[in-house]
């Protein structure tokens, strides 16, 4: 391993601009003569729009234009789409209600977009907005997931608010397992609604060049090419070759910046209407109201265990809240990204899940770090832990006994696990967490009047999203391959044009490590280009822990092609047959001789083209590849959380958090650890303090950092991370991916630890001090009886 190759903790190249304040985020983009947009949003969760009076507003100082849904319709601008078709059990397609970029006739959640006001300054746009009179006919609203089917219809397409009733698994075998079970554990769970809250709020700058007819959109996107595809093909802004989308530096996404939103759509469309660039930036409250939220499942789950302690059946019923409109990937999250993980790390012959997705008058819900897999892992790992306690079994050994031990392993829920060693991660985690010493630590805590608990989470997830034909057959509207172009410049520097997008993942460094490693050139000679549809032809973007497994595999394949061609050029330069050329450490040699030429010289020769004719070989050294995964990848691991709780206050302190994960090959361990730290913190946030709360009338009560508790530095511990490795068999680099695992594994580890400490069989998320105090009080009362 070289100091800058695969496996090295290379310090990040992109850091220089971020630590010196020279990043270029979308709100840092300023265009000459730009106007500012402000979006008028619905204050009601559910209402008809009887009229919108802009007469006074349009004459306010600085106003360049005011537009509503009617204006978009007149220009035949299409609505926002959901790109994944899910069919119900009866074969009927999901009930998709229209989602216009500016409301047409009705608003369906507080924050729904009603009008855009464009003015010289943001303050003028806001002032003009206050003069708009919207006559709303307020309707009864519902924000509650469990009662959605009994609530007034959000969309005419679905009288009972059902989007779909879906299922997956081997129902008959599962029923049979439950019939013969020696023990059945049952649990009711809520996976609390979260707001992703990347630190950079969403923003957009739309521009239209009347001279060329070309639109340009700067947007906070994880996938600018997907944005261009949707804006062009479905929304109808312009044909693709007349629409450039740029996602510059983006300050975090976590899924929330995958989707194509109303504001960026309106800004790019409106730039032509007002004849000026249109700039918009969300404030944090707007982000709370209108960014896609995450999670929000109500679940009943059961585990059947035989008399030998073997898990034989799991059945799950989930109600998934999709919000007021179907966001871009929303339908896939509680279905194909959820149920296929319900087997967990265990060999369970019968698994059956039913998922009912519903509309409510809340913000649309879509993928948020983990997207379906945290929800699945929470169900499985809570169920398994509770079962272990009910059966009087050690939770680690109960799991170990049921691990999948031979591969490939076909689960009843589509996924075929291709490799792993769950035993190895668990054993290492138990050691690092000093599981043996826990008993003594618990006694010491008790002496101080404190409760101490330990909780496990043995997670597996499916990522490296995804094999195109497979997801296509499941309803995806797009393929999920990735693209790479390797451009070798004449003097031997290299540009990689990737369809992936970096918004914190460090691709400018990790992708360059691969190139440096493979071509034997200094890492400083490698540039990674991403985020601009004018530069990179096409890509599917970054989410689903796919940039290593899929994005880098595309680069790897393109590098193979480059090396193959370079060997041909080297043959001409060294006057040897191509079959005698060897390439190692950046040098081409002729086998059996001391003839050598370096990569840079070969590159130059490829472009000078003096040593071969056009008939023998094309000049140039530039190759591309599209890589379509052959399978999902299956990162897995064991997380152990240890907490100390003060029963007087309910305050939970995480004393230690241990994560042992198998991500296959690690390109940059420092970056992988960083991804784990961030994911674990988000999971701890979900478990202990975060939760988006709507009141009965559909008002979002948690719409700022005052009310929605984000984890701060003193809310989380330092983490202990370690890795085991079973190389991923399905891609050339052996990478499984690590971006979401922390957020997937941690919530059940924390809740299992808390319930172990207080002895109460379920504690809801977020397990705030009040929730934990109540549980501790209830247990103390029980013990006294």
């Amino acid at each position: 391993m070289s100091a800058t190759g695969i496996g090295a903790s290379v310090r990040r190249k992109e850091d220089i601009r971020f630590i010196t304040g020279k990043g270029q985020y979308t709100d840092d983009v300023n265009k000459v003569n730009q106007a500012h947009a402000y979006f008028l949003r619905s204050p009601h969760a559910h209402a008809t729009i009887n009229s919108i009076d802009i007469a006074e507003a349009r004459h306010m100082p600085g106003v360049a234009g005011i537009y509503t849904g009617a204006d978009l319709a007149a220009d035949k601008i299409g609505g926002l789409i959901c790109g994944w078709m899910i069919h119900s059990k009866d074969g009927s397609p999901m009930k998709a209600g229209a989602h216009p970029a500016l409301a047409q006739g009705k608003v369906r959640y507080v924050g729904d977009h009603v009008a855009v006001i464009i003015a010289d300054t943001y303050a003028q746009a806001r002032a003009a907005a206050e003069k708009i009179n919207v006559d709303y006919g307020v309707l009864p609203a519902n924000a509650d997931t469990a009662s959605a089917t009994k609530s007034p219809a959000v969309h005419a397409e679905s009288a009972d608010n059902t989007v779909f009733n879906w299922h997956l698994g081997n129902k008959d075998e599962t029923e049979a397992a439950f019939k013969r079970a020696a023990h059945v554990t049952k649990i009711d769970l809520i996976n609390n609604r979260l707001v992703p809250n990347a630190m950079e709020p969403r923003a957009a700058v739309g521009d239209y060049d009347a001279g060329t007819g070309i639109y340009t959109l700067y947007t906070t996107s994880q996938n600018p090419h997907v944005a261009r595809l949707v804006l062009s093909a479905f929304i109808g802004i312009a044909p693709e070759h007349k629409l450039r989308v740029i996602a510059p530096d983006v300050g975090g996404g976590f899924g929330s910046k995958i989707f194509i939103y109303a504001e960026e759509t309106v800004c790019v469309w409106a730039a032509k209407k007002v004849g000026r660039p249109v700039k918009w930036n969300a404030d944090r409250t707007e982000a709370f109201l209108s960014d896609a939220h995450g999670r929000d499942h109500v679940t009943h789950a059961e585990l059947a265990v035989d008399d030998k302690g073997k898990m034989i059946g799991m059945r799950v019923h989930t109600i998934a809240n999709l919000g007021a409109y179907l966001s871009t990937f929303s339908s896939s999250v509680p279905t194909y990204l959820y149920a296929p993980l319900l087997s967990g790390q265990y060999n369970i012959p019968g698994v059956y899940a039913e998922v009912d997705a519903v509309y409510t008058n809340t913000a649309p819900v879509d993928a948020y770090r983990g997207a379906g897999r945290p929800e699945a892992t929470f169900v499985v790992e809570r169920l398994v832990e509770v079962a272990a306690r009910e059966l009087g079994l050690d939770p680690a050994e109960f799991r170990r006994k049921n691990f999948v031990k031979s591969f490939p392993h076909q689960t009843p829920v589509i996924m075929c696990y291709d490799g792993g060693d769950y035993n190895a991660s668990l054993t290492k985690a138990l050691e690092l967490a000093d599981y043996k010493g826990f008993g003594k630590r618990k006694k010491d805590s008790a002496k101080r009047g404190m409760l101490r608990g330990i909780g496990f989470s043995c997670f597996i997830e499916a990522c490296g999203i995804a094999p195109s034909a497979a997801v296509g057959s499941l309803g995806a509207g797009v393929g999920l391959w990735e693209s790479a172009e390797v451009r070798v410049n004449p003097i031997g520097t290299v540009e990689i044009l990737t369809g992936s997008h970096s918004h914190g993942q460090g691709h400018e460094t990790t992708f360059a490590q691969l190139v440096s490693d493979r071509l034997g050139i200094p890492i400083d000679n490698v540039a990674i280009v991403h985020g601009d549809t004018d530069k990179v032809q096409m890509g599917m973007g970054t989410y689903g822990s796919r940039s290593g497994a899929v994005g880098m595999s595309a680069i790897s394949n393109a590098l193979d092609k480059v090396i193959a061609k370079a060997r041909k050029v080297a043959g001409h330069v060294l006057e040897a047959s191509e079959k005698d050329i060897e390439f190692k450490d950046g040098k081409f040699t002729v086998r059996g001789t001391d003839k050598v030429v370096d990569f840079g010289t070969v590159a130059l020769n490829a472009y000078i083209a003096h040593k071969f004719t056009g008939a023998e070989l094309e000049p140039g050294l530039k190759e591309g590849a599209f890589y379509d995964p052959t399978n999902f990848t299956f990162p897995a691991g064991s997380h152990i959380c240890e907490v100390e709780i003060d029963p007087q206050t309910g305050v939970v302190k995480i004393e230690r958090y241990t994560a042992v994960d198998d991500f296959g090959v690690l390109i940059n361990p420092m970056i992988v650890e960083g991804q784990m730290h961030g994911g674990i913190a988000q999971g701890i946030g979900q478990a202990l303090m975060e939760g988006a709360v709507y009141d009965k009338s559909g008002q979002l009560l948690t719409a700022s950092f005052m009310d929605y508790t984000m984890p701060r530095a003193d809310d989380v511990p330092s983490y202990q991370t370690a890795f085991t490795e079973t190389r991923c068999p399905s891609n050339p680099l052996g990478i499984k991916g690590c971006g979401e695992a922390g957020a997937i594994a941690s919530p059940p580890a924390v809740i299992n630890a808390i319930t172990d400490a207080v002895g109460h069989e379920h504690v809801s998320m977020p397990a705030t001090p009040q929730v934990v105090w109540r549980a501790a009080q209830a247990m103390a009362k029980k013990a006294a009886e």
Partner: protein
Amino acid sequence: MQKVSMIINGKPVSGHIDPRTLLVQFIREHQHLTGTHVGCDTSQCGACVVHVDGKAIKSCTTLALSCEGANVTTIEGLASGEQLHPMQAAFREHHGLQCGFCTPGMITTAVDLVNRKGHHLSEHTIREELEGNICRCTGYHNIVKAVAAGAEAMHHDHAAELAHSHAAE
């Protein structure tokens, strides 16, 4: 409109502004220094932290006019030319950033923390003192390491400065 003048990163600047203009808006929109960021609307996230007259303040909750005549340092003013400030270098060395959006505020807060609490900072102190800065990417683990290392490095720099100035006497 009112006139305001101050010194930003050692350079005297002035402008005619709407009196409601926040310091962060003056910095970003009038002075085109976009390193300071806005991440919230309740003064909690810390992405907007700058130094005014030697103290860290949240520029999203400060009126530009209230900084008339003040000495302001933003993230752009920390480095000396090509030479990174030791706290900046520490953030890179310890992978204390991912998306970079909270980073300018984190670094300026950290420098202020060292100015107030010294060069040998415990993990507990650092975590408490960073309560006013929210990061969504890093889980804070490496930020804490970076701040501790940056604090020590600032000590060496400071000691070297002192030694140099003693020698010059």
